[in-house]
C-alpha cells in the first residue's frame, strides 16, 4: 500500500519536512472546520441567554448552566404545546425500532432469494425494486397520505412505521443481496443435496455469516429513519411527531423571545443518538453509506 511507505525512499530533506508541516496544518484546519459548529452548539447550550447576548459564538460560558438542557427536554414550546423534546424523542424511538426490525428482517430474506434462489424474472424485479432507492419521495407523498387516511392510520406512529418499512425495503434488500452474492453457492448446493430446504439453509448457513451485514443494515436504517424529516412532517400529527419535526418547529417558532441555548440543547438531543451510533460503529456506518449511496 502506498500509504505505508515513504514517498521518496530514504530522503528526509527540509523540503519534505515543510511539506509535512503544511499537510498536517491543512488537515487540522479542516478538522476544526468540521468540529467548530458542534463546539459552538455545545457551548451555546451551556450558556445563559444573558451570556449569549454579551459574548460571541466561540466565547466560553461564564458559568456553566444546564437550564437550557432541562428546558429543551422538559418544557420548551414547539408550536402550541410546551412539553419539551422528551415526548417526541420517545415517538422517534417508538417509530425507529419496529421499522428497523421489520425492514431489516424482510430485506434479509429478500436478499437471500435474490442472490441464492434466482428464478426467471427475479433479476428484473430486483432492478425495479432498486429504482425505489432513488425516487424522490415527493412523487409518493400525496397518494401515501390518502392511503394512510383510508387505512385509518393517518397522523399516527403506526403509519410512520409502515411508511419507513416500505421505503426502507429497497435499501435493505440491496444490502443483503449484495452481501449474499459473495457467499459461495457451492455450500448452498451441497446443503440442497443433503436435503436441506429453503428456510433451513437460510437459518443454518446464511444467517450465521450475516452478522456484519445486519449491523450495516440496522445502522443505515436507524440513522435514515431517525433523521427523516419529510415523512415525519407530511404524515405525523400533533401527538405522533418525530423529534426532527419537533426540533424544526422549535427552531422556527417565531413567538416569544428566541432562546438560542434551548435551540442548541434540543438540536444536540435530536442528533445525539445517531452520533453515538456513528462513534461506536463508524466503520459499518461508512459501509452502509457507500453501499447505500453508490450502488443504490
Amino acid at each position: 500500500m502506498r500509504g505505508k511507505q515513504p514517498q521518496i525512499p530514504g530522503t528526509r530533506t527540509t523540503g519534505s519536512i515543510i511539506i509535512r508541516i503544511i499537510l498536517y496544518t491543512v488537515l487540522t484546519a479542516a478538522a476544526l472546520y468540521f468540529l467548530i459548529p458542534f463546539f459552538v452548539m455545545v457551548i451555546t447550550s451551556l450558556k445563559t441567554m444573558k451570556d449569549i447576548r454579551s459574548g460571541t459564538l466561540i466565547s466560553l460560558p461564564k458559568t456553566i448552566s444546564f437550564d437550557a438542557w432541562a428546558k429543551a427536554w422538559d418544557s420548551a414550546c414547539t408550536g402550541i404545546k410546551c412539553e419539551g423534546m422528551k415526548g417526541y424523542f420517545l415517538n422517534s424511538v417508538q417509530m425507529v425500532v419496529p421499522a428497523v426490525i421489520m425492514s431489516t428482517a424482510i430485506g434479509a430474506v429478500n436478499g437471500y432469494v435474490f442472490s441464492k434462489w434466482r428464478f426467471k424474472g427475479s433479476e428484473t424485479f430486483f432492478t425495479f425494486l432498486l429504482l425505489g432507492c432513488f425516487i424522490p419521495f415527493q412523487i409518493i407523498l400525496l397518494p401515501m397520505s390518502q392511503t394512510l387516511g383510508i387505512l385509518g392510520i393517518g397522523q399516527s406512529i403506526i403509519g410512520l412505521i409502515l411508511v419507513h418499512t416500505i421505503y426502507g425495503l429497497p435499501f435493505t434488500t440491496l444490502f443483503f443481496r449484495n452481501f449474499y452474492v459473495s457467499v459461495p453457492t457451492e455450500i448452498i448446493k451441497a446443503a440442497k443435496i443433503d436435503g436441506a430446504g429453503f428456510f433451513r439453509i437460510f437459518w443454518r448457513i446464511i444467517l450465521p455469516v450475516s452478522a456484519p451485514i445486519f449491523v450495516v443494515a440496522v445502522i443505515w436504517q436507524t440513522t435514515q429513519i431517525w433523521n427523516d424529516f419529510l415523512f415525519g412532517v407530511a404524515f405525523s400529527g400533533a401527538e405522533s411527531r418525530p423529534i426532527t419535526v419537533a426540533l424544526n418547529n422549535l427552531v422556527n417558532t417565531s413567538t416569544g423571545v428566541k432562546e438560542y441555548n434551548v435551540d442548541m440543547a434540543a438540536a444536540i438531543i435530536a442528533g445525539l443518538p445517531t452520533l453515538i451510533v456513528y462513534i461506536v460503529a463508524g466503520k459499518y456506518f461508512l459501509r452502509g453509506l457507500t453501499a447505500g449511496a453508490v450502488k443504490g
Partner: protein
Amino acid sequence: MNNKNNNGGLGGLLHRLENILPKIVLLPTFALAAIFIYGFIGWTTFISFTDSKLLPNYKLVGVHQYTTLFENFNLITHTSRWSVAVSNLIIYSVLFIGICIIIGLALAIFLDQRIRGEGLFRTVYLYPMALSFIVTGAAWRWILNPDLGLERLIRQLGFSHFTFRWLVQSDLAIYTIVIAAVWQSSGFVMALFLSGLRGIDDSIIKAAQVDGAGLPRIYRKIIIPSLRPVFLSAVIILMHLSIKSFDLIMALTQGGPGYATDMPATFMYTFSFNRNRLAYGAASAVIMFLAVMAIIIPYLYSELRGTRNER
C-alpha cells in the same frame, strides 16, 4: 425434512413447494413495490393531469398544471415561483457539488500521505453525515444569525464594519444553504475519494516515480484521471441529494425570505400541503421524478451492466 430421492408422491410435492417458496417469500415485497412505488407514481402522475385542489378528483384537464407551472418560466428574471425554485436548485447543486468535490478530493489526497492519526481525521471529517439535516440546519441557523452569530464574532475581533447577513437577504440566502450542505456532505465525498485512491494499483505509481516524475505530476497525470468512476459516482449521488433537498431548507430558511430559497421539493410541499393545490403539487413532483430518473437510469444501467460483465 423433504426427501428428493423419493420421486413422486409427497417428495415431489415438497420439491415443487421448494421451487415456489422463493416466489412466495418475495410476494409481499412485490406487492408493496407494485402498489407503493409504481402504483403511487402512476397515481401522482394521473392527479397531475386533473384539477384536484384540496381533495383528489379524477376529472382530467390535460396538461393544464404543467403549462401553469412553466408559465412565465424564466431562470434569469424569476418571473414565476417555479423558475425561482428551479434556478435555486441549479445554483445550489452546481456550487454544492463543485465545492464538495474540491474539498473531498483535496482532503482525500492529503489523508493518503501516510498521515499519523488518519483514522481520527477521517472520523472527524465524516461525523456531520450522521446528523439529521434538521440538526445541521439548526446549528447553522444559529452560527449565521445576523445579529449574534458570525457577524458579531468577526466584529469583536476588530473588524467593526464587517456585515454578514446572508440568512435574511433574499439574493444571498441560497448560499447559506450551500454552506451548511457542504459542511454536512464533503466528508462523505472525502471517504469516496479515499477508497478510490486506496484502490489504485501501486506499481503504476512506482514506475512513474522511477521515470522521475514528481508527485504533483503523478497526481495530475495518473492518479486523478484514474479516479474517473469515483467522480462520476460522487456527482450522481450529490446531484440526487440536491434534487431531493428539503430538510435543510426547511430548517435553515423555510424557503425564505419570502420564497427566495424555494426549491422544487419545498415548492411541491407548499402547494400540496399548505395551499391545497394537489394537482399543481403533483405536477411539480412529476417533474422532479423525471429529472431524477434522467440522471439515475443511465447511471444504473451502466453500473449494472458493469457488474454483469464481471460475473
